[in-house]
């Protein structure tokens, strides 16, 4: 077992990076002043992983959309009942989530840490699927999908992704569709499970109040051997051109919701992290509360409190998003375009850059305030191929020149799409 300590001088904190012989990467971040411990057991299987091959498979396998999320639901069931029962006995609160590029199982506890950790490791490593339970789950997830159909914030986001991406599966709802999940059966779940829930493809991160030696012992006793297999996750062949410039849907909302997205080149590793942070600063400079654009749009009543920006990026996708509510989303899109064009001519202010950089540093430090943030940060960084402290380092290193450079290669008008969810025609 290889174990090393990773420290950060600024925060005066450290964590343990352990490479276990089973293939599992373990990240232990003790925060002894806290009351709770938060553990995440994650695999690099998200909604975008629909085409893959493992080991000696001659061909790629294509699976129905929503399989990762379906698997997450089903893993809570074992032959002798529900995984929630295991946690109920310790009082830990347990949960799981599937995102675009990962599935994570988690618990938070202030008591019986060892038992809770054992429960987590046990249930994630014990798949049990039958045709009967799969069919029942199709009903439950079908309801979940329908619930999201009524959620305008969710719809406006996925419609935007559908407009920006031509082939990349990021545009498909994480839960899939009622149709796609109807194709899932027990065999398929086992196939995905054995491919992706291999410890070589997984990470265990724990942050908070827990004894490190106890964690190590429980881990040692509860990991099942995994054979190292080669796994290839096929990335979609995605051109830089967008699918369409505008998409509109009607739902029962009060006033239109909008998301304006710019498609950017996807990146990975430290390069990705740097681009992510630089773009956060850039978007703050263009449309944050300290920008003239924000003030103008707000005072004209074109945006309200809901307005904000986001850098949305992951494996194979990178988009800059401006989102909010507006009586006239098309005007907002025009104003943003105009502002960007104006800034290209005029140039960005160095003074504003320094202000925004300081704010970014503050936000990063704040991220270390909560055990769940730290545990999630460990997992995100690990899957992205960077270190959790790289955030601080990268943020400090950003120069005015970097921002100018980032600006010159992003926010291209020809790769912009607008998604609108507007009130139903009859209720206007």
């Amino acid at each position, binding site marked *: 077992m290889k174990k090393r300590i990773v420290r950060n001088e600024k925060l005066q904190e450290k964590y343990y990076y352990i490479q276990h012989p089973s293939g599992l990467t373990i990240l232990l971040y003790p925060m002894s002043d806290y009351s709770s411990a938060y553990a995440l057991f994650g695999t690099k299987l998200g909604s975008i992983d629909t085409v893959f091959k493992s080991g000696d498979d001659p061909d790629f396998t294509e699976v129905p959309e929503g399989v990762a999320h379906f698997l997450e639901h089903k893993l809570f069931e074992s032959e002798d009942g529900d995984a929630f029962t295991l946690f109920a006995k310790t*009082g830990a609160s347990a949960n799981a989530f599937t995102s675009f590029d990962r599935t994570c199982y988690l618990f938070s506890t202030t008591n019986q840490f060892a038992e809770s950790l054992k429960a987590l490791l046990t249930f994630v490593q014990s798949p049990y699927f039958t045709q009967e339970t799969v069919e029942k789950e199709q009903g*439950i997830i079908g*309801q979940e999908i329908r619930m999201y159909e*009524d959620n305008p914030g969710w719809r406006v986001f996925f419609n935007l992704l559908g407009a920006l991406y031509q082939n990349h599966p990021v545009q498909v709802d994480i839960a899939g569709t009622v149709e796609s999940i109807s194709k899932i059966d027990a065999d398929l779940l086992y196939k995905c499970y054995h491919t992706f829930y291999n410890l070589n493809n997984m990470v265990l991160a724990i942050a908070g109040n827990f004894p490190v030696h106890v964690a190590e012992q429980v881990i040692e006793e509860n990991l099942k051997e995994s054979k190292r297999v080669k796994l290839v996750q096929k990335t979609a062949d995605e051109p830089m051109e967008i699918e369409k410039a505008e998409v509109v849907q009607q739902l029962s909302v009060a006033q239109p919701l909008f998301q304006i997205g710019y498609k950017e080149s996807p990146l990975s590793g430290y390069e990705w992290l740097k681009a992510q942070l630089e773009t956060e600063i850039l978007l703050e400079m263009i449309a944050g509360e300290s920008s003239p654009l924000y003030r103008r749009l707000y005072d004209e009543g074109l945006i309200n409190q809901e307005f904000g920006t986001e850098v949305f990026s992951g494996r194979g996708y990178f988009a800059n998003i401006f989102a909010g509510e507006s009586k006239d989303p098309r005007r907002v899109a025009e104003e943003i375009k105009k502002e960007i064009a104006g800034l290209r001519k005029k140039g960005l202010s160095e003074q504003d850059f320094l202000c925004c950089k300081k704010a970014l540093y503050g936000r990063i430090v704040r991220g*270390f305030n909560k055990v769940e943030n730290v545990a999630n940060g460990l997992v995100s960084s690990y899957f992205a191929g960077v270190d959790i402290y790289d955030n601080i380092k990268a943020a400090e290193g950003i120069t005015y020149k970097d921002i100018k450079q980032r600006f010159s290669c992003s926010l291209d008008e020809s790769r912009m799409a607008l998604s609108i969810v507007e009130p139903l025609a009859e209720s206007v």
Partner: protein
Amino acid sequence: MSVLQSEELYPGVRFHAVSDERFKTNQIEIHLVTALREESAAKNALIPSLLRKGYDKYRDFTRFNKYLNLLYGASVEYEVEKFGDMQILSLSILSIDDRFALGKENITEQISTVLFQMLLHPVTENGMFLPAEVEVEKQSLIDEIEAEINDKRMFALRRTTQLLCGGEPYGLSEYGTVEQVKALDAKQVTRAYHELLSTAQMEILFVGSGDSESCKRIAKEQLRVLSRGKNDLREVKTEIHSPLAEPMEQVDRMEVSQSKMVLGFSTGIPCDSEQLYALRLMVVVLGGTPMSKLFANVREKLSLCYYCAARMDRTKGIVKIDSGVENENIEKAKTEILRQIEEMQNGNITEEELNYAKLSMINSYRSVNDSNASIESYYLGQILCGTANTPEEEAKKICAVTKEDVVWAANQLRYEICYLLTGKEN
């Protein structure tokens, strides 16, 4: 362990601090507590959004936000909430602690000053809020009220409260109505602001690792201008919900794929009574965890709902059960929910169910101290209920609740309302 330290600075103005080294931040919140009333809800609700725009030294919103960025991205938030029959208007600021400053800045002193300056010296002209700003914020508030229909689950819960507590302040919206907001002008809002400053109960909370004493000193210095007397203060009390004469049903129709059903019950148990602990535990056994009766039966066993959970409005002794349900399952789900309540009333609760609920609640109480936001909202709740228990003390009281107490609490549930938000009729 975090302890709340409180001091009355002036009549009705209290400063509370939870100092805790674990945090890398300091957060200061000012809560103005006033009676929720039809005639004042809208104008009061507008005030926090005007205060957050800057203060006399930073009259320009853009310049003000640049200054906040220099304070390491200090975030200013405002909120309008309802707590029982009270309307709570809040303004807060948060940034990193001085020890993480890249220079040697006193971030905490600076953000404390900013917050009190915002409260006391907002941007005005001839002593009035700027009419143009008032108009913009009016529209923003109207947007917020109208956007309540966007989140169907929250909308259904709010609508149930409104119907159930029709004759009580708690039935009012904390934002007022669209018509009331439309009718406001800068003069009325300015008058409401001055009235709040002189009469509202003011609760200031500091949570963080920094020096709360310097924040308290700044608060004391700055708030002196209020020159409050003992008689100025208007204390607010919440009355327990008085049940409807007859149970009621209400159906609202909208374009939705999934229906939302809320069942509402009264219990007559006030929030400062010892019986509250039995009620709390009862609600968790019934529908507070994945092991609860509602989750295990209505969702998992019978697949009747996507979610089905019980929650409590402790200030009014009201319990609500809300569910997301397919149209064809509405009646079945309602019958099953009521059947699960009957089970509890008849004492059909296993030791396991009781223990699981207790362990889960104890875990939540013990976790309160791990986030500044949860400490803040926990202690504000204590202050407003007139209690001063630590989370550990609350956990102890939950531990002491017996099965008989839970059965007793279940028997206090009086069915009052079934609210349904469903699709349009064909």
